[in-house]
């Protein structure tokens, strides 16, 4: 057990350290998130009434795209330098190592999105209640995005141009998250209870946490064979 725990934390620590050594790259998905949201008032209308209405969808779609964008590199460098192969060969169960990698990825990409979201809520003139719901849905939803997305990344890691393919594979699977999350935020801004949607999201998170690591592990083994 200690071997498993130490492998888990070793990967977590290594990935976090690698991420902080490339601080510039960390900021890119965040900037992407911010810029996409900025484009909407410019492209649609600066009318605050309208912005308030479309805000949940705008922020969540930007979050989906930013998550995909940052996920692309989840296994890339490990694949290139061969450490992914070492992980596959290690005696520790691969799904657990995958969870460590996804957790590290979420800490450096999902969590900052959570911190940036209140600012975006402000930009789009969301009421405080809706902003709170947005934070909660992002807190439950972004790990979900990382877990589901990791399956697609693992399937495409061996390919030369996996990027656009990844979007094709993964975006349809993101639809339930998008529906429940934006619905919760819309309901919150109308003053309605949002527990139902949040429970649904949490249930999806539990489901993904149970099944996705195994699928990612299988996909990695396929890609490396």
């Amino acid at each position, binding site marked *: 057990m200690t071997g498993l725990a130490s492998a888990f934390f070793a990967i977590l620590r290594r990935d976090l350290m690698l991420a902080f050594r490339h601080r510039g790259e960390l900021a890119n998905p965040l900037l992407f998130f911010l810029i996409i949201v900025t484009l909407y008032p410019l492209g649609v209308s600066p009318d605050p009434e309208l912005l308030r209405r479309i805000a949940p969808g705008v922020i969540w779609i930007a979050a989906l795209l930013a998550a995909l964008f940052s996920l692309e590199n989840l296994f890339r460098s490990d694949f290139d330098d061969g450490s992914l192969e070492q992980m596959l060969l290690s005696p520790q169960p691969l799904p657990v190592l995958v969870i460590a990698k996804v957790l590290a990825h979420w800490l450096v990409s999902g969590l900052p999105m959570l911190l940036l979201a209140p600012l975006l809520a402000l930009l789009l003139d969301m009421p405080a209640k809706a902003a709170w719901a947005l934070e909660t849905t992002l807190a439950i939803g972004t790990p979900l995005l990382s877990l589901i997305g990791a*399956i697609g990344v693992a*399937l*495409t890691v061996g390919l030369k141009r996996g990027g656009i393919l990844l979007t094709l*594979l993964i975006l349809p699977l993101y639809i339930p998250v998008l*529906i429940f999350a934006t*619905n919760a935020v819309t309901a919150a801004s109308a003053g309605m209870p949002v527990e139902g949607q949040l429970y649904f999201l949490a249930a999806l998170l539990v489901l993904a946490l149970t099944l996705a690591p195994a699928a990612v592990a299988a996909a990695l083994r396929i890609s490396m064979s």
Partner: protein
Amino acid sequence: MWTFFHKLASPKHFYRISGLLIPWLGAITALLLLSGLYFGLFKAPPDYQQGESYRIMFVHVPAAWMSMFIYTFMAVLYAIYLIWNIKLADVMASSSAAMGASFTFLALVTGSLWGKPMWGTWWVWDARLTSELILLFLYLGYIALVSAIEDKRTAARAGGLLILVGVVNIPIIHYSVEWWNTLHQGPTVTKLDKPSIHASMLLPLLLMALAFQCYYFTLVLVRARTELLDRERRSAWVKELFG
């Protein structure tokens, strides 16, 4: 019984047996299709609300059924492939994908053609239409992934995993889309209400559904045979067959 299945799983026997089956299946397809069209276009009475235009249902509904059937069938085949490593299952599944996507597309197009006179618009974000569109995306994603991977074995396993992940997600997507739509707009969209459809309309519908099913099996066998010959072109039995 089991020896029959084992034999069927071997490419050589599959090639022989499917060669025998195809003419029969083709003939049954033609028969069902012709009788279905005859009953559907000439015998079934016009609908009291929708007039003649409801007849597109005889193509639309079977196509939608097939689109869902083929995805499920592919998932079963890939489970067989990944568990028992039977190559033939992958040959069948990968030959099915393009047909599944075509049926999905056909269902969308016919639905849209029907929607224009009925709903007054080519497209509404109705839950079923949206689910069908997402199903098309899932098919296209699978096709894109498989064609992007050079090695056939890797492509098969990756595609199989994707289909299995998709099959877990389809009910979730379907129900979330349904839920999303009911919250957005209630029963403003007049849905095709079917209070126990009359026999004169049900008969052609069932005939057409069977015809589509047989059509799919005929064509998928033809495609699988071609694919099989391509993959096994270096094996002894293919050389024996074609000198």
